[in-house]
């Protein structure tokens, strides 16, 4: 798609290797193992950091600053996946080595570090970013230097880059099924939309509003609070006045904790479902901070919950706890981050090469039957086909899954009629 902007066009046979390359070639020839799976020249024509027995990838998340709270789980998941892949023999017979960089919750830092990973470390793929702002910051870098980014977070959609594979859900996958479910199962007629004031909640609520109105139902209020807002008594009074059937919440970060604590304190018992709270922003990770007793009874619409009972997930949860400690919880994004290395491995093996262009060409249609969330498949638009589930929050901080879409939902990052 974007081949015209590639610095390292694929398929160039590199008839005139530079000095470095010939040295590498000589070294490779000297150390050529008897069982070398595929020769270096075949699997790496674009000068990536691949040797006879290793391949370098990047991990780029915030481990300091305000986003560290959210991104820690993704880092752990990606490392676990890489370790498991290495234990199985690696990718194309090469062990994965990761270079970890810290985006420090600062978007220009993300861009700078991604440039470093692509230009200096010459990594074959990067697993990273969390907020949309950080993804938007690194996007031009990945497109200019033709890198490959595996992005784990559920997000607002309206983007499709040849250099990104989106392993989380885009907004319509997450939202439409959730709203359909409350309308069908809980006979909801009126909705109140509430979010933190930035692109993801605003886009999500736009989609939600269109969908609700298409169903002939009513949005009785829509409100946004600044990021980090900690006082929600006024909005709770508005709920009491307007009496919506459903509060559709996409509040994030520290505000989340304040919102649910104050909702509970104001006498709104979410287990009574009057009003019912449907959130798209609270994973098991966030409940750690909110406290299970404060969110008991709320519903969440996501593709993954830790309590999924399939065999893949049980093995995943067990491995995750063995690696990172027993008291850890796994949220939707953590699982999506775990898919990244596996999807990349499958695409590399299908392509028979680490070259970004070949991996990109091989990616659509890649299936993963071992995903903790079940079966996923890469769509030509670089998002994943996935199921959406509805979970009911319990006091122990876990979700009880009450519904699962029967079919995989097609990703639709540019939904017609919702913009």
């Amino acid at each position, binding site marked *: 798609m974007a081949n015209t902007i590639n610095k390292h066009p694929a398929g160039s046979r590199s008839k005139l290797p530079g000095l470095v390359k010939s040295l590498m070639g000589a070294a490779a020839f000297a150390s050529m193992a008897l069982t070398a799976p595929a020769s270096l020249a075949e699997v790496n024509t674009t000068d990536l950091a691949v040797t006879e027995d290793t391949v370098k990838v990047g991990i780029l998340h915030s481990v300091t600053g305000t986003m560290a709270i959210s991104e820690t789980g993704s880092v752990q998941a990606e490392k676990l996946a890489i370790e498991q892949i290495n234990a199985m023999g690696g990718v194309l017979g090469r062990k994965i080595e990761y270079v970890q960089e810290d985006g420090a919750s600062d978007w220009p830092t993300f861009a700078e570090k991604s440039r470093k990973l692509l230009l200096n470390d010459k990594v074959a793929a990067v697993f990273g970013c969390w907020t949309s702002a950080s993804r938007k910051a690194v996007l031009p870098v990945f497109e200019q230097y033709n890198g490959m980014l595996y992005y784990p977070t559920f997000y607002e959609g309206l983007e499709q880059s040849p250099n990104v594979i989106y392993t989380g859900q885009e907004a319509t996958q997450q939202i439409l099924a959730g709203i359909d479910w409350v309308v069908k199962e809980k006979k909801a007629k009126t909705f109140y939309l509430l979010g933190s004031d930035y692109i993801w909640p605003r886009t999500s609520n736009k989609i939600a509003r269109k969908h609700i109105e298409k169903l002939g139902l009513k949005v009785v209020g829509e409100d946004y609070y600044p990021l980090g807002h900690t006082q929600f008594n006024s909005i709770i009074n508005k709920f009491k006045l307007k009496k919506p059937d459903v509060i559709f919440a996409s509040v994030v970060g520290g505000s989340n*904790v304040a919102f649910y604590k104050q909702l509970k304190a104001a006498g709104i018992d979410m287990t009574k479902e009057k009003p019912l709270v449907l959130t798209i922003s609270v994973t098991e990770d966030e409940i750690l901070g909110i406290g299970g007793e404060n969110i008991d009874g709320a519903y969440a619409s996501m593709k993954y919950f830790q309590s999924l009972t399939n065999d893949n997930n049980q093995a995943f949860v067990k491995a995750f706890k063995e690696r990172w400690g027993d008291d850890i919880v796994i949220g939707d994004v953590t699982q999506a981050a775990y898919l990244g290395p596996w999807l990349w491995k499958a695409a590399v093996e299908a392509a028979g090469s680490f070259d970004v262009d070949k991996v990109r060409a091989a990616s659509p249609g890649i299936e993963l039957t071992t995903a903790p969330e079940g079966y996923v498949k890469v769509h030509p638009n670089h998002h994943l086909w996935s199921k959406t589930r509805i979970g009911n929050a319990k006091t122990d901080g876990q979700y009880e899954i009450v519904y699962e879409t029967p079919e995989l939902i097609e990703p639709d990052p540019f939904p017609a009629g919702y913009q």
Partner: protein
Amino acid sequence: MFADYSTSELMSIFAMQGFAGLILFSVFVLMALGLAIIFGQMGVINMAHGEFMILGAYVTYLTSNVFSEYMPSMFGSYFFIAMILAFIAAGALGMFVEWALIRHLYKRPLDTLLATWGLSLILQQIYRSVFGAREVGVTLPDWLMGSFQLSEIVEVPINGIFVMTLAIGISLAVAALMYKSRWGIQVRSVVQNRPMAGAVGINTSKVDRLTFGLGCGIAGVAGSAFTMIGSTGPTSGQLYIVDTFLVVVFGGAASLLGTIASAFTISQAQSTMEFFLSGSMAKVLTLLFVVVILMLRPQGLFSLKVRR
């Protein structure tokens, strides 16, 4: 927008909205009192105020863990002990910081801004290393969780009443300390004229240390109380710092009464506007209102009438 509702419904909502404003007022007072002492009385621009609050929150978290582990029968009353411990911990850290850092900077008040900002980054990283990057959940005793049902619609959260009581109690205690006690007279004289206060025999460095410690201790109590309504994480203190400075500066930095008046004005303005507008817009208008007032009255709402 009110055509669809009956008069009694509207009355109830306005009553509750008024109460929401009072809770916000109490939160602002608790946040700002400590800073009013440190910034207002001592002139130290303490950017680490939020981190002292979060220290109190973490102390509460630890206390709740200890109680649920070793004394589950006493769990209902742990919150009071946690607040006392929070006051001691934050106050002790405050006195140490004053000794190690602040006392060298009294003649350079603007430099305290940078020094305490650095301190806030250090403290955040310490919290992150000790407690982890994720937010921790503080379990509250059951009696703090519910709400009073006054009528069909009017419900008053108990933790709101608790925060209000605490705010009133601490304000009265600080007022008594500052204006009725011998120590308060010493503090005020040191603030007004440090060399002269020293000359009449006041141990100024001791007064400074205690004052700074008291301000930080109150921040710790506030942080402890805020575990009921907000999040406890390494960077949660940043959520409060802007509002805190806003309240103190708007009130007139040197006046405690001004701080309270300003907390009242800002909280009522914000909570009324939040009800009629969206939350973000209410915030924008509140800030605009504060800016305009400060343009007309740069010294803030209340100012000390002293000859300079």
